[in-house]
């Protein structure tokens, strides 16, 4: 199978969906720039032109309301936020309206299937207000679907699914993943929303992870294998709806659970999955669940602080060894070099 970059896979998903559905349009700050949201909108801009891919002023809340008003008339808008953090300005429209539209009008006002793409920043000192990861906050609200592709196959597949979904979808894309590569089918195979994936099977410990942390977990699992530890990596892919079945069957199989997430612990995705295991698979657990998330501070800028702030493959691997009682391991720092220097 051919290999694509994550950004190329996103782009292909968008372009294929736009070819099929003339009601899809895409807007947001900088979507039609030559740089095209780190390459992900360049082909759509070239192919469909300014009638369907167009720049917008910085007006996150109204832009979202406008998308909802257009969706109510049959359009399928894609809004892009080059950083998650700007979405806070659109929470009124996303949460008070889009999430509840179908429900609070009893289904009689139709649905408003907008797709909101937002990029999670990390590294090069992007700091407190350019590197937040909002899945835990957004996952709280009934009516929204929240997805986080970690691998190129799902970047395309979840985009295809989002653009035919019957309700609003928030897609959080990690900037660090944009240049990663992976196999992506030429055919259009949507990744079902609400389904996790076992991306590496194992028998000793389950690592349920989101987005960039799934990528890190896979690397950790490869290193752990050298230590004789077979970790099972579950890429959550979908925050809401949450695929409880896949997560629980992995926990029941291994009896140990690490949850690794790109947001914070408190009231976060990692806590949610830990609670799920405690409520529904307590009898299968051989050790306390371990959560791995960002340090309990805003994101810092300076290099040593940033390194201390972000968990990584090493954090995951060491936690796994500790949970398995392997304290004499020779496993050192396994992290890959962080080559990210922008563009942001």
């Amino acid at each position, binding site marked *: 199978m051919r290999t694509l970059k994550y950004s190329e896979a996103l782009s292909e998903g968008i372009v294929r969906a736009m070819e099929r559905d003339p009601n899809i*349009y895409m807007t947001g700050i900088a979507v039609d720039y030559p740089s095209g949201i780190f390459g992900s909108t360049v082909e759509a801009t070239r192919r469909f032109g300014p*009638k369907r891919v167009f720049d*917008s*002023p910085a*007006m996150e*809340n*109204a*832009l*979202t*309301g*406008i*998308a*909802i*008003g*257009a*969706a*109510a*008339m*049959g*359009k399928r808008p894609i809004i892009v936020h080059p950083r998650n953090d700007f979405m806070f300005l659109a929470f*009124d*429209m996303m949460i*008070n*309206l889009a999430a509840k*539209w*179908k*429900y*609070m*009008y*009893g*289904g*009689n*006002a*139709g649905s408003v299937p907008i797709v909101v793409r937002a990029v999670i920043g990390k590294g090069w000192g992007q700091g407190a207000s350019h590197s937040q990861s909002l899945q835990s906050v957004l996952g709280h609200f*009934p*009516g929204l*679907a929240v997805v986080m592709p970690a691998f190129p196959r799902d970047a395309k597949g979840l985009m295809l699914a989002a653009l035919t979904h*019957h*309700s609003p979808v928030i897609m959080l894309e990690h900037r660090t993943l944009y240049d990663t590569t992976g196999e992506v089918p030429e055919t259009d195979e949507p990744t079902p929303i609400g389904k996790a994936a076992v991306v590496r099977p194992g028998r000793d410990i389950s690592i349920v992870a989101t987005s960039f942390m799934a990528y890190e977990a896979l690397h950790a699992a490869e290193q752990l294998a050298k230590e004789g530890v077979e970790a099972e990596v579950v890429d959550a892919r979908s925050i809401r*709806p949450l695929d409880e079945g896949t997560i629980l069957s992995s926990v029941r199989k291994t009896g140990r659970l690490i949850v690794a997430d790109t947001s914070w612990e408190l009231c976060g995705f990692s806590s949610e999955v830990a609670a799920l295991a405690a409520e529904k698979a307590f009898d299968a657990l051989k050790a306390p669940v371990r959560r791995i998330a960002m340090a309990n501070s805003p994101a810092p800028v300076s290099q040593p602080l940033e390194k201390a702030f972000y968990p990584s493959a090493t954090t995951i691997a060491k936690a796994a060894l500790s949970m398995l009682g392997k304290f004499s391991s020779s496993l050192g720092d396994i992290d890959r070099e962080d080559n990210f220097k922008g563009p942001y």
Partner: protein
Amino acid sequence: MSAIPTFKDPDPSRHSDLPSETEARLFRSMYRVRHAEESLAELYKEKEMRTPTHFGIGQEAVAVGICEALRKDDVVYSHHRCHTHYLAKGGSLLGLVAELYGRVDGCSRGRGGSVHLTDRSVGFVGSSPILGQSIALATGSALAFRMDDAPRVAAAFFGEAVCEEGIVYEAMNYASVNRLPVLYVCENNFYSTESSAATRQPPGTELCERARAFKIAAEKIDGNDVAAVYGAARRALEHVRGGKGPFFLECETYRWREHVGPMYDHELGRTYRSKDEVEQWKKRCPVARAERRLLAAGISSADQIESWKAETRAEFDEVVRRAKASPWPDPASLFDNVY
């Protein structure tokens, strides 16, 4: 008195460019809205409608004047005080009343209540109580119409306090940049809940100037004169449909009842405005004005008007009977339409 009217009372026997049938239609629609609202306010006191309700009594001319000028396939968005717009656009009366009673025949099947109304069959897309949402939504529907080259218009109703929200300026700026076919209808009723304009706007504020700052055509009119509202709406819609971009209409009007609930403020001892002020504005009643107009201009006889009123009252009584007989939603349907 802090809510001083800008406009003089119109002469009921003045010359009008409107056909008689139109004037009669405007009155009948206003009376129907008024009767429904007055009656619902009385029924509300029985405490069987468990949904915070904002009555629009006193503001009927804005809703009716605008909606009568719109076409059926034009769409409307409204806010928390939405019964007037919903009924004026042709929304199902049973849908409204059953919704207030929380029944399955409600327009939102008992999920929405007073502030979340919809009737897509007549272009009333939805109402929502968060300030400013209607403006962005109408702007978005106008964007869709522009993309499709459809000769349709989207209208947003909102109170003047919305002009203190940021989203208004985001949306108006966008609509102007893209010359979108959207009509902004500002109902200036002088109060935001119980806050007067003095605490919210600098002295000498003219809201139309704010629209004009975005290169949007704007006009301030007497929102208690249905013929004036209708005439201004027709002109504004010609502008909007002609591809000249959005139009902002500021309609000066007055809410009679409390912000939310069926009572008069003075009955509850509230002092943010005086009973006298409310009484002064009741003399400017848009429905009574239109009725005087029909009589003074010889458009309709008193008997004719009375027979319309009787018809409206009978319709309402029958609808209340049906709404109260409508079943409650099944608790097993709690999760319907979450996704």
